């Protein structure tokens, strides 16, 4: 890359430009942004280009793309990464190298054909990530090597370090090799998780009720409309939930060095991510109901990167681990595991009453609605409502018991583990020093039952926070107090 001259105080910096193919990406963005305006003009002119003004309008996206490319530059110094963008309003971002949470790259199919890469550098703040698109592979490798406190032994150009090792501090240990069969199973398990199934069941019941209320003839009249609008969404939603992550997560690999956690995955668009291991805030294990039946779980590493793609599910999420593999993966982030999910402290059994209260309310509403419909339309609806209300109470009892049995927590000198979920389970493991804040929350019913929910904030995004519902109020406040005292004694630099 040819260095670009800087201005004023930036003259000492060696500014570099992204790859010229960036103009193509900027052109696509510019067309998207001006699409409505262009369409309007073309419609007005009957799609004919016969005046200078029309040519200017058509050339606007091209000019915008070129201007954006020429105004974008970046520089790396010993202390920081500088990034300048903007045509009229110029913005310069300066990110200290010690603030870098993670570095990720993304290669679409076209980018791989052209030897280019999109690179994102994330810190812990919101909306301040530096995004460089596009860089040549060599420039990306050079930049990633410069930014690592220990240089990464694996470059963008290589397909993966399995079986290779540079030894010493940069020794790369494959923590998870590509196993697409597990990823397929995990995607199926996730796609068939209980949420979409409940939505499908509710929609089916709604259709049945609609048929009973307005009659099949009325439904037939609108069948075509329903068939064109509702049914495709209905039918395609489940396969879409399975196929979309599958495409993003195939060929997933995970490595660790002494300092870094590194991942790579993706079928058409390849994503690579790298983060300091000490930056990981929490490790979350997700076990969907169907996934458990298929013998798989997902393990997510949440860093303090607030909004960047480096913390998107596709990069620091192991999408297909065998059940219990989290016990070998979690130490990559939290250190030697001091806890596991057996022999946990239980929350108060009064949590069952709180959960049952919701199901009782739901059953009551179903009963009232069903009886009303039964009195006005058909007695059959009333009896159906009674049956559904009874089933709701029974399901509530089973669900509340199962939830209470699975809800638990464990605490050691340095780590906290929380398990929750009746149907889709979730285990959170974190180092206590990562706690940024603690909230104790009580609904009206919880106050009456003497319960409270404890929510621990970390430097990660929302799914990096840890929530422990329905502790006794005393336990919640004592646990919050203990964790905050420990956290307050640790310098913040170790917690982000």
């Amino acid at each position, binding site marked *: 890359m040819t260095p670009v001259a800087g201005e004023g105080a930036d003259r000492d910096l060696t500014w570099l430009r992204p790859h010229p193919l960036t103009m193509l990406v900027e052109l696509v963005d510019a067309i998207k942004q001006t699409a409505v305006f262009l369409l309007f003009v073309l419609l007005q002119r009957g799609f004919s280009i016969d005046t200078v003004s029309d040519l200017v309008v058509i050339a606007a996206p091209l000019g915008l793309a070129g201007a954006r490319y020429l105004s974008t530059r970046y520089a790396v110094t010993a202390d920081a990464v500088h990034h300048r963008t903007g045509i009229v309003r110029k913005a310069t971002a300066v990110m200290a190298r010690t603030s870098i949470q993670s570095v990720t790259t993304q290669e679409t199919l076209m980018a791989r054909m052209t030897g280019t890469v999109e690179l994102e550098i994330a810190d*812990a703040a919101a909306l301040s990530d530096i995004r460089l698109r596009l860089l040549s592979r060599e420039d990306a490798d050079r930049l990633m090597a410069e930014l690592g406190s220990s240089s990464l032994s694996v470059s963008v150009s290589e397909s993966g370090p399995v079986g290779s090792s540079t030894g010493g501090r940069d020794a790369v240990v494959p923590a998870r090799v590509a196993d697409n069969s597990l990823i397929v199973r995990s995607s199926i398990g996730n796609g068939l998780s209980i949420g979409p199934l409940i939505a499908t069941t509710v929609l089916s019941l709604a259709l049945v009720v609609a048929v009973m209320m307005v009659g099949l003839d009325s439904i037939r009249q609108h069948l075509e409309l329903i068939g064109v609008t509702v049914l495709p969404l209905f039918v395609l939603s489940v396969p879409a939930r399975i196929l979309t992550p599958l495409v993003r997560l195939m060929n997933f690999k995970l490595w660790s060095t002494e300092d870094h956690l590194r991942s790579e995955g993706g079928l058409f668009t390849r994503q690579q991510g790298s983060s300091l291991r000490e930056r990981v805030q929490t490790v979350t294990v997700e076990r969907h109901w169907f996934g458990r039946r298929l013998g798989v779980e997902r393990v997510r590493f949440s860093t*303090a990167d*607030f909004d960047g793609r480096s913390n998107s599910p596709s990069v620091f999420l192991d999408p297909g681990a065998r059940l219990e593999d989290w016990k070998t993966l979690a130490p990559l982030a939290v250190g030697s595991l001091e806890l596991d999910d057996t022999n946990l402290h239980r929350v108060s059994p009064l949590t069952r009453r709180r959960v049952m209260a919701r199901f009782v309310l739901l059953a009551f509403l179903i009963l009232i609605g069903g009886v009303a419909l039964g009195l006005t339309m058909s007695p059959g609806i009333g009896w159906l409502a009674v049956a559904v209300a009874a089933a709701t109470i029974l399901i509530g009892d089973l669900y509340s018991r199962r939830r209470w049995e699975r809800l638990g927590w464990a605490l050691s000198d340095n780590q906290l583990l929380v398990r929750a979920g009746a149907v889709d389970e979730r285990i959170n493991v974190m180092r206590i020093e990562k706690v*940024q*804040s*603690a*909230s*104790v*929350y*009580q*609904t*009206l019913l919880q*106050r009456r039952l003497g319960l409270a929910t404890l*929510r621990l*904030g*970390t*430097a*990660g*995004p*929302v799914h*990096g*926070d840890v929530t422990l519902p329905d502790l006794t109020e005393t336990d919640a406040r004592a646990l*919050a107090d203990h964790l*905050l005292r420990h*956290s*307050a004694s640790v*310098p*913040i630099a170790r*917690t*982000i």
Partner: protein
Amino acid sequence: MGAAFGFVVVVLILVVVDAGSERLALFGLIPAVMAMVAGWMIGTARWRGWTYELTAKWVTASWGVLSRHTTTIPRNRVQSVTTEAGPLDNLFGLISVKVHTAGVQDLRIPHVHKASVDWLKAELGQGVAS
């Protein structure tokens, strides 16, 4: 307050448009008065429930009438402190203070008197991220 104000405005408009319609004015005034009383009661309950505490080590805020929240942040976890005030706040000399951490959980202290805000910001700033 806003709902009650809205009701009063609607009633005034109705009265002006259909001057002399006493029944209409009565039907509009009753909900307006009820809304004002309800607003006053809710506002008082919320004010009573909202407290904050600053100690050497942490800052704690509690709020909520039906559901109670208590959030505690160690002072050495405070990343930044922001303040905001709308037109009504400015009228009464009040400012809302938000304490930010590195995560998504922030702590909000609403409607602090202007005189106290500088002290609060100085105190919280001393503990910032050390």
